């Protein structure tokens, strides 16, 4: 029926059409209930795909794996694996924080490797939270700018609630930073600060999405 339009619905859904194509398709959609329905169904398929649950295998496969890798703590390493592989603690922290930021709203951040200044595997660390929070702070600042521009689209009660909750999160961030200043290598404190900053990012993102949808 409307093959030329139907065929492009997935690309539209995924944001892959340029502005002109998108305009043309949206103009068509406003008059074509069938395409709208198909689009809704495609959305549901994508949502369903995202919601698929992971199931472990029915039988435990570990024994088969263990057998082939040689179980138990191996002391004699084959020559090609003899090189010891160790992360320095700053690398662990940087990696773990990258994971936390990625797994919760990282779509707004560029994926970068944090440059860790101290590579000594033992001893005190010169890593401070400044070395990894820079990127997050920048992302938060960007989103706050966007929110300020968008605020007029939200009503005052919502704005008030959002601001109050941003303040709650800011207080938590300040407290976490304070504790971290006194104990900069503490993994929990680093992760907690990262997690709290991520919450702020997510709230900003969510509110901006709501404001944008009102336009």
């Amino acid at each position: 029926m409307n093959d030329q339009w139907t065929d492009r619905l997935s690309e539209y859904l995924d944001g892959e059409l340029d502005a002109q194509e998108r305009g043309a398709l949206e103009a068509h959609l406003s008059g074509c209930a069938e395409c709208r329905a198909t689009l809704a169904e495609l959305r549901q398929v994508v949502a369903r795909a995202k919601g698929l649950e992971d199931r472990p295998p029915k039988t435990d496969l570990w024994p088969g794996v263990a057998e082939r890798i040689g179980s138990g703590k191996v002391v004699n390493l084959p020559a090609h694996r003899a090189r010891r592989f160790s992360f320095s603690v700053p690398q662990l922290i940087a990696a773990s924080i990258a994971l936390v930021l990625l797994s919760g709203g990282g779509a707004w951040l560029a994926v970068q490797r944090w440059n860790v200044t101290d590579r000594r595997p033992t001893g005190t660390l010169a890593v401070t939270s400044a070395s990894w929070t820079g990127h997050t702070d920048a992302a938060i600042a960007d989103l706050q700018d966007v929110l300020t521009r968008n605020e007029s689209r939200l009503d005052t009660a919502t704005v008030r609630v959002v601001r109050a909750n941003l303040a709650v999160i800011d207080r938590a961030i300040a407290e976490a930073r304070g504790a971290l200043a006194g104990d900069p290598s503490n993994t929990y404190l680093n992760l907690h600060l990262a997690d709290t900053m991520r919450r702020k990012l997510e709230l900003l993102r969510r509110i901006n999405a709501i404001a944008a949808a009102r336009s």
Partner: protein
Amino acid sequence: MAPLVLEGPLTRDQPAADVVAVDTALAASGDATAFERLYRTHVARIHSLVRRMLDADEADDVTQDVFIRAWNKLSTFRGESAFGTWLHRLAVNVVLGRRKAVGIERGRYVTQEEPLQNVSGRSDTPELSMDFEAALARLPEGARQVFVLHDVEGYRHEEIARMLGVVPGTSKSQLHHARMALRRHLDR
């Protein structure tokens, strides 16, 4: 402003990352107990990926292959990405490599909208995703793999095209065909 799309899947349900990193370091130096912990954490995800991209019969064997390959290659894992991401990518490579080895080219890609509408969903178990996953398993392999990589696992078309050895246009159209065929099997 469109959000940046990240390369590879986002891992959400992970234990504390520093614990994973420590286990990875231990496993890379030969500690099989640490590797077993990593196995336990990731097996459901890897097995599900393999099952959806291949089929249920091969899934157990291929899952074991993935973990054995991971054990052997652990010394090359540099901690640049999360372990889960690295493992996941390795699993995709194992799956696609196997596909080339078995090598049935015919009928891999959908040329018209597949007549799946007469497939009735059946479920042996009360698990919710049976109907949808059963329909997924009936898609031709190419379309199914594109769908799994894009919609389930979050890869982009450029990457999928590279992995499967096709042009991005094919990846996009296969994705669309898969979605169109699957929409009749959304469980309610």
